[in-house]
């Protein structure tokens, strides 16, 4: 394998240290320097009083979202039509909300709730305002439900249908569900909900829009108020530890599931189907998933009447900045996935160390990652120019997904097929170009799609590093949201949605083609 090549090992290690290690070292050094000057700052890293309340609230919100997504996502996945059937397009359509950033969902649901309040007010019923913990929980669940459903589908595709058929020889449909299907898919399902937990912990847009003070929001507020990076780093320690504790067990099985080299539908190919009662619940969950799509479409379209179209036209450069940033970040992520992915696919001490290193950026909240990028730029004397720094920050935050997915794919790859490429190679480089890379193509494309989506919607870190006059669309929308310009926001959201589709449709089509041939 390529990991036996020392140049590959060296370049992979150097790339990982430069992109993932440097911002972490910068944050660590800055925090240590501050602690040496003022040792009492250590209290920031130990949650107590207000920060403890915030941490507990963040964990409660993220935990409740993760549980709801686990239950509803699992149920919805069992009711979706098969991808290869006549209704396969419906299944794809239900995953469209995945490409829409959380704050756009929030806007749609706020508007839907307002409409509902007006409708029921006619009948003399006064609904409470759509604010607070419950509203944030509902919207976060809706945001991450497609992801949880997708993970559940991946879990089902990994189950050998013969195992389920064997269970049916000896028991009912429900018994097969509880005793075989769920236990076999359990690790991936649980990992999916842990991933949702981590994403919720790091999101500050929904809590801020629904007036729920969370730990991630506190980190951003602290930086805005004091400008002291070391304070934010120390304050982020409990957050990072909680997220790492959730990520570490989750990431391997998630990566393995999404990179499974299979177009099979696993248990959907067995004769097993949910019983009538279970099916009712599953259909209910699938309706919930559809509700989000319908809510988004209706709410955004109906909000257009108040749009300031001049603002939308003015936002065209921002859309271009978003697309350019996503393309840069994808290019960097691809290079990192190709050089670092193989190293983390084997269980050598180097592979395990790199795996641990790249998990940390995933656990960092956006604002802290952004400040890390700023400090790292200082270490290399501003070598990360204003144009490059945002793309490097995005690679720092999201390329770990690409590396982990590539690593997981390689760990599960048909080693014989890879090595046959070396045995029969007649022209130098043929093995890498004609066997190794094509076999990785489906997972690389999927990983880059994911990176593009995350980059386009990212707010927390981008706020810190974007140079003046280089505002991406996500920041423009976020700013308008806080000014209350809802019509313009709707129009901009649709523009963002268009930009995302422009970026992802070619990628999605090539991914599907590559996946089918793999």
């Amino acid at each position, binding site marked *: 394998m390529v990991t036996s090549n020392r140049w590959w090992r060296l370049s992979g290690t150097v790339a990982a240290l430069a992109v993932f290690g440097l911002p972490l070292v910068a944050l660590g050094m800055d925090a240590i320097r501050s602690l040496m000057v003022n040792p009492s700052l250590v209290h920031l890293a130990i949650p107590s009083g207000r920060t403890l309340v915030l941490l507990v609230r963040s964990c409660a919100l993220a935990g409740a979202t993760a549980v709801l997504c686990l239950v509803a996502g699992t149920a919805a996945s069992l009711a979706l039509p098969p991808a290869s059937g006549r209704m396969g397009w419906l299944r794809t359509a239900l995953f469209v909300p995945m490409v829409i950033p959380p704050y756009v969902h929030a806007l749609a649901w706020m508007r839907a709730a307002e409409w509902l309040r007006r409708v029921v007010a006619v009948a003399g019923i006064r609904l409470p305002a759509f604010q607070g913990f419950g509203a944030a929980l509902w919207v976060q669940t809706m945001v991450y439900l497609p992801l949880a459903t997708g993970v559940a589908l991946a879990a089902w595709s990994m189950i050998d249908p013969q195992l389920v058929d064997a269970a049916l020889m000896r028991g009912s449909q429900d018994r097969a569900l509880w005793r075989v299907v769920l236990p076999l898919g359990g690790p991936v399902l649980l990992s999916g909900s842990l991933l949702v937990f981590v994403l919720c912990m790091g999101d500050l847009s929904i809590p801020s829009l629904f007036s729920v003070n969370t730990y991630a929001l506190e980190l951003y507020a602290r930086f805005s108020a004091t400008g002291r990076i070391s304070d934010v780093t120390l304050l982020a320690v409990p957050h990072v530890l909680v997220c790492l504790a959730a990520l570490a067990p989750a990431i391997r099985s998630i990566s393995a599931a999404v990179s499974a080299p299979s177009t099979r539908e696993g248990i959907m190919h067995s004769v097993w189907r949910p019983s009538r009662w279970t099916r009712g619940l599953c259909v209910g969950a699938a309706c919930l998933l559809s509700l989000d799509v319908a809510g988004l479409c209706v709410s955004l379209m109906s909000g257009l009447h108040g749009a300031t179209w001049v603002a939308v036209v003015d936002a065209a450069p921002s859309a271009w900045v978003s697309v350019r940033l996503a393309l840069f970040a994808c290019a960097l992520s691809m290079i990192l996935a190709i050089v670092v992915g193989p190293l983390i696919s084997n269980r050598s001490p180097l592979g395990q160390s790199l795996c641990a290193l790249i998990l940390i950026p995933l656990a960092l909240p956006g604002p802290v990652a952004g400040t890390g990028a700023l400090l790292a730029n200082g270490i290399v004397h501003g070598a990360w120019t204003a144009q490059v720094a945002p793309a490097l920050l995005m690679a720092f935050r999201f390329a770990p997904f690409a590396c982990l997915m590539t690593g997981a794919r390689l760990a599960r790859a048909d080693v*014989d097929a890879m*090595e046959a*490429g*070396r*045995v029969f*190679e*007649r022209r130098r480089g043929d093995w890498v170009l004609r*066997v190794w890379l094509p076999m990785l*193509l489906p997972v690389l494309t999927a990983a880059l799609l994911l990176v593009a989506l995350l980059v386009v919607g990212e707010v927390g870190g981008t706020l810190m590093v974007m140079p003046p006059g280089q505002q991406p669309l996500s920041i423009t929308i976020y700013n308008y949201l806080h000014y209350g310009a809802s019509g313009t926001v709707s129009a901009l959201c649709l523009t963002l949605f268009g930009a995302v589709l422009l970026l992802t449709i070619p990628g999605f089509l090539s991914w599907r083609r590559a996946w089918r041939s793999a």
Partner: protein
Amino acid sequence: MIECTRLAFSFGGRTILSNLELTVSDGERIVVMGRSGAGKTTLLRLLAGLVAPSEGSIRVGGELASVARRIRMAPSRRDIGFVFQAGALWPHMTVAQNVLYGLADLPRPEARRRMTEALDACKVAELALRLPQQLSGGEQRRVGLARAIAPHPRHLLMDEPLTNLDSDLRSELLQLVCEIVRSHDTALVYVTHDEAEARAVGGRQMRLENGRLVAEGSA
């Protein structure tokens, strides 16, 4: 000719092969048997240059190919064909592309002629445009064999190539392998744990025991 001298291989603190001596002369047939985990596949991977030995050396055609912890001759330079246990066909290439891959150093017309000849010999010529996942298990094995013999290698390594096939197909493929090896005067190292299969291949019968090769019946 392939010569292994004092060959040893350890992995994860476990010794798999130790002090192994083996010479494969041109045109010779050797069958290697042994229980699961005895190191049969590892031996083939060492000969092919896919892993480096922990100790000892391997010479291919008189040239030093592998020494302790170092591969000096790349697998593609050893003039070896390898038939993997599960086929190991590349899923993104058609049958024809799988076979043509190993013929890239030949002029295109010659490469196509060799491909057709190999597919014909293995009776899969009509499947040339199919993808591996569109083939049955037996067809995949035939394509794997065609890919290995198409470059006319001096040595052919086969790693339990007939596992999980029904008995009719096994004897048919076995006959095919013997014919091909005879017609090209190729040296064959055939790994199996099936004694009937070993007898059918013929040649020198060896058994891997405690990391060493012993002649069958002499242990």
